[in-house]
């Protein structure tokens, strides 16, 4: 016991020394501070890396506090840009207003939430939105525990669920799209903020069903099997549709396709380093988002977003309602510019 405290004490001293050593600011660097969704992080980071090559005097830092955590900092004026895997929520709109923070909302790419099962699962070929709802809604907790409870004909074997934790925008969007209410789901599943944990879980468990962003499925294709989703609405693709770059892009993978965003602080945009970074972001998001596993918006959408920045149009395209399902970004963007 004694030994332990000594170590702790030494650790504290060491930490203080290291931190104080690091906090000396050298040179005349300019900073762009970004925080927020871990889903958007790969794109923002890729853009930041390229951008650094262009101008070494600008330091771009990208954090991963989660969409909700990012907005908390953003609306307190601590960050210049917030990464978000869902639109801003009413409570966050209020917080920003209270602190007099104006923001410009810019969609940067699409993501498709993929329902995945183990490759050894032989019985499930597709699933409907109704069945997903039955399985994930709060009332299912401790009740729906076997595959045959989801669909008669599936075996009487336990079903093990895997999904992102409650701090993630991916969880928010999934619950909105499937259960119909943001942040409402059962609680007895393996919840992790780290998507790699979910991949590991589903890939080693025959009775598993999980969901996460398309990028993580694409990266682990050989270990997972995607489960096509049928929204029973023939207007956007007949029958079950599997998640892929194509189906997300042409809008048939519904309701689990979603745009992802960055939010830019209006005042910060007057600083040249921030506006240069945002400019560079919109110019290169098409290439870089594909590189890291997401689906680019149309050329038109990026041009419209560019205009939004030039005209300094603040507020949310989604009127601050949080996650919305089945959004066609081009259409919404165009409307907002008229």
């Amino acid at each position, binding site marked *: 016991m004694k030994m332990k405290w000594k170590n702790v004490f030494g650790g504290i001293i060491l930490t203080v020394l290291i931190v104080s050593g690091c906090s000396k600011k050298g040179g005349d660097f300019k900073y762009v501070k970004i925080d927020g969704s871990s889903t958007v992080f790969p794109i923002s980071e890729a853009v930041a890396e390229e951008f650094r090559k262009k101008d070494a005097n600008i330091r771009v830092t990208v954090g991963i506090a989660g969409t909700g955590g990012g907005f908390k900092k953003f609306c307190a004026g601590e960050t210049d840009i917030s990464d978000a895997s869902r639109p801003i929520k009413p409570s966050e709109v209020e917080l920003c207003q209270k602190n007099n923070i104006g923001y410009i909302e810019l969609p940067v790419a699409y993501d498709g939430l993929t329902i995945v099962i183990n490759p050894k699962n032989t019985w499930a070929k597709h699933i409907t939105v109704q069945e997903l709802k039955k399985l994930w809604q709060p009332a299912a907790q401790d009740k729906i525990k076997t595959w045959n409870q989801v669909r008669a004909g599936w075996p009487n074997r336990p079903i*093990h669920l895997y999904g992102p934790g409650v701090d993630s925008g991916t969880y928010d969007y999934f619950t909105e799209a499937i259960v119909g209410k943001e942040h409402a*789901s059962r*609680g*007895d599943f393996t919840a992790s903020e780290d998507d790699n944990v979910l991949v590991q879980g589903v890939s080693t468990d025959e009775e598993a069903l999980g969901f996460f962003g398309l990028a993580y499925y694409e990266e682990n294709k050989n270990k997972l099997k995607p489960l096509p989703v049928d929204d029973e609405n023939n207007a956007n693709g007949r029958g079950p549709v599997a998640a892929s770059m194509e189906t997300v892009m042409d809008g048939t993978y519904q309701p689990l396709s979603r745009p992802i965003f960055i939010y830019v602080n209006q005042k910060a945009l007057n600083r040249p380093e921030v506006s240069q970074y945002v400019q560079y972001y919109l110019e290169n998001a098409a290439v870089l988002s594909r590189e890291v596993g997401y689906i680019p918006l149309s050329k038109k959408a990026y041009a419209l977003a560019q205009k939004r920045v030039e005209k300094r149009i603040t507020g949310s395209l989604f009127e601050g309602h949080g996650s919305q399902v089945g959004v066609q970004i081009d259409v919404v963007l165009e409307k907002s510019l008229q």
Partner: protein
Amino acid sequence: MIKALLFFCGMVSVLTTLGIVGILVFETWGFFQHVSFKQFFGDTQWTPLFTNQHFGIWALVSGTVLTSAVAIGTALPLGLLAAIYLSEFATKNFRLFVKPALEVLAGIPTVIYGYFALTFMTPFLQNFIPGLSGFNALGAGIVMGMMILPIIASLSEDAIYAVPPSLKEGAYALGANKLATIFKVVLPSSFSGIAAATILAISRAIGETMIVVIAAGQQPNFSFDPREAIQTMTAYIVQVSLGDTPTGTLAYQTIFAVGMTLFLFTLLLNLFAHHLRRRILKGHL
């Protein structure tokens, strides 16, 4: 001056402990303003972060007890046999080589044990046990057993070593062979030392965090089936404190209520172990 400085250093640990206990009690008090004892102790579901809220601590306690039981089930026989071998059978040179090697196990960072459980032990066990989830209490528990093995082996060996030679010689004089001497005389005489080692190992297992966070799953599950994914008390605390839980919310207070439960568990065990060790020192075997 130096004396005051040293006094201050000594007080740091005491004050830290007092501070921790104080905060635990304070926040736990706040938690029980919202959640009744009946909800806490009378339910087997633990889902405080979700819409359908349940606060049944047993779902987490069962996870902790299960992994610790598997760990002790692995470490006690292995550790005890290793201790017997080292003190009674091994040659001096071999002992000089093996004992430090065993203690090196205690120096491996637990995050490495965690990934060892996840990426080696579990796939290995899946060869024999069909239906074993990718995250499960069994693999995590066995690897945790390896981690606490040095505690049991080393402390038990000290206890066995401390058995007076006269007792052993007496047994031999009565015609007992080596095995009979060990199991009938040496082990019973060193019982309280071995028990103290075991209890220390148990409290280490209960408090272990990294291995179970990585390998046992993060699903509160009131079950004593080691093939399933579970969540321990420590893993829950990690899960919540990693996110952006605002202070003062119920979700924030749950981690203190769980922490308090955990604290009481290990406190009781440590007191018991302390008591046993004192008995040894006094010579009551």
